[in-house]
């Protein structure tokens, strides 16, 4: 179970660029739940993922995962519990190393790296088998450098790497945003399959209303560093793309109203 209690993070505090990216966010995610997070630009959805992954330490609040208090754990220590796929296909793999070497690095996620041999026969066999399930024609190319693959292939491999050892939590940060539509669909289908098959607790940030409406068991909407909407269970299942667009429009109008009201008050009183 993932639990965030009153998590806050402010970037560039005390400067004109101050950004209150997370404002006392509370979130509890039960085991095996697939949670989709959407939000406007700068709403804090990626910041939320990075806070859980440990890319930075939060200013206040606490984070626990699988009964461990991980608020003060550095990123590499949290990786024992967390698998991650990044938005940028270049971020999740080492371009100059072979597919097999990359997978081997993932097969030891969270374990000490010793002077033993990573590419042993059983592991290589397992690699061939699991890579063949990607249906990307990579089975015979395990020795090829990852840099020679397309973005979609790299993201599919990163997904495989993130879930090679079953993670307590899978973090997907707009992992199809940089892909062409066809590869994006492929990677999304793969994501759904893997998450369902292994019943992975998952947080997926997306900018696609379509993905948000059709994927996952729970949908969270963020705005200005806060969770403003939380659809669960049957309610989530009923959500359509139009509902989400309408909800966003509402948020936008409220904001406009806020700003025009503020402007009016300024004009009247200043």
């Amino acid at each position, binding site marked *: 179970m993932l639990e965030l209690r009153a998590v806050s993070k402010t970037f560039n505090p005390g400067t004109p660029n101050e950004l209150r990216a997370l404002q006392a966010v509370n979130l509890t995610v039960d085991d095996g739940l697939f949670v989709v997070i959407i939000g406007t630009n700068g709403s804090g959805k990626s910041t939320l993922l990075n806070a859980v*992954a440990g890319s930075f330490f939060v200013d206040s609040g606490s984070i626990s995962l699988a009964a461990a208090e991980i608020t003060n754990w*550095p*990123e*590499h*220590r949290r*990786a*024992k519990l*967390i698998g*991650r796929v*990044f938005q940028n296909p*270049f*971020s*999740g*793999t*080492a*371009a*100059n*190393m072979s597919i097999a*070497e*990359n997978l*081997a*690095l*993932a097969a*030891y*996620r*969270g*374990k000490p*790296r*010793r*002077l*033993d*041999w*990573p*590419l042993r026969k059983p592991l290589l066999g397992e690699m061939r088998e699991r890579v063949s399930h990607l249906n990307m024609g990579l089975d015979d190319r395990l020795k090829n450098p990852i840099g020679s693959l397309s973005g979609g292939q790299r993201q599919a491999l990163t997904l495989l*790497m*993130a879930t090679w050892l079953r993670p307590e939590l899978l973090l997907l940060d707009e992992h199809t945003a940089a892909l062409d539509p066809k590869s994006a669909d492929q990677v999304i289908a793969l994501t759904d399959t893997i998450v369902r098959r292994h019943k992975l607790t998952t947080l997926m940030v997306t900018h696609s209303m379509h993905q948000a409406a059709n994927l996952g068991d729970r949908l969270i909407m963020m705005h200005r560093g806060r969770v403003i909407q939380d659809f669960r269970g049957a309610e989530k299942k009923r959500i359509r793309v139009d509902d989400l667009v309408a909800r966003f429009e509402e948020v936008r109008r409220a904001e406009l109203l806020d700003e025009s009201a503020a402007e009016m008050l300024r004009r009247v009183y200043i």
Partner: protein
Amino acid sequence: MSLLLGALTLGFIFSLLALGVFISFRIFAFPDITADGSSALGAALAAMLLVHHVNPVLATFAGFAGGFLAGTLTGMLATKFKINGLLAGILVMTGLYSVNLHIMGRSNISVLGSSTLSTYLDRVGTALTRHNTLNVMGWEITSLEASLLIASFLFIVLAGCLMYVFFQTNLGTAMRATGDNHEMVRALGINNENMIILGLGLSNGLIALAGAFIAQYQGFADVQMGIGMVVWGLASVIIGEALVGTKQIGLSITGAVMGSVLFRLLVAMALRLGLNPNDLKLVTALFVFAALVTPELLNRFKTLKPRSFHA
């Protein structure tokens, strides 16, 4: 002939420098100039211990260990204290200058008269050939020269193989990945800072080992001897890459050794042809500069060509 043998032997010894520079500059993409200090540190430590009648193997190993510590120090400055990598190297290198003076007690010490690896090899060579000189294809060479060359060759083959095997292990793979993509490495639970610290330790250990061998080969250690080492190592690595490419770690290691030997041969030839030894470092720097910018210039030339054709 002995000029050629000397150049080859020096080339093999300096291969350790090239391998060290390869680790920091190529595997970690870390511009580590600690090397200028750590090579002299290796020489100083080994020479000082040899003068005090310590076993040459132990003394040489002490040189390696000293360089290793210096490298980890640079790594810690760069990671734990977030100092710019180049500056971290400069700080350690500058500090090492004083350390080296303290170790030796003066600016240079001679190990002639002490028993060193060279005197060991001389004894072995003389015992095997039962002569002080050998006749190889009409050339007269001393058994010392021959045994130094063979020993340095065997050692560098062993070191290269060990390094290749190391970078295939889990730890070595994690190190290579750290230089490739530190974001991914952290996401897979590897402490990338520790990898950099350990990697720079290994790099500078090898470089200091080269220093320790050089001190015994030339018979003295000098506090100034480290100046320009990084550029020498880089020149060797670049020549190696031109020879064998950069695709595979095994090829790169072989290339660095070949580059080092070829570089020493070129230096020996240039000096023979009348190059002023004072100009050696300037010429090497210019060579590295040219090797670094040429690919870029060629690329620009290629992309410019079609446009000028239309114009």
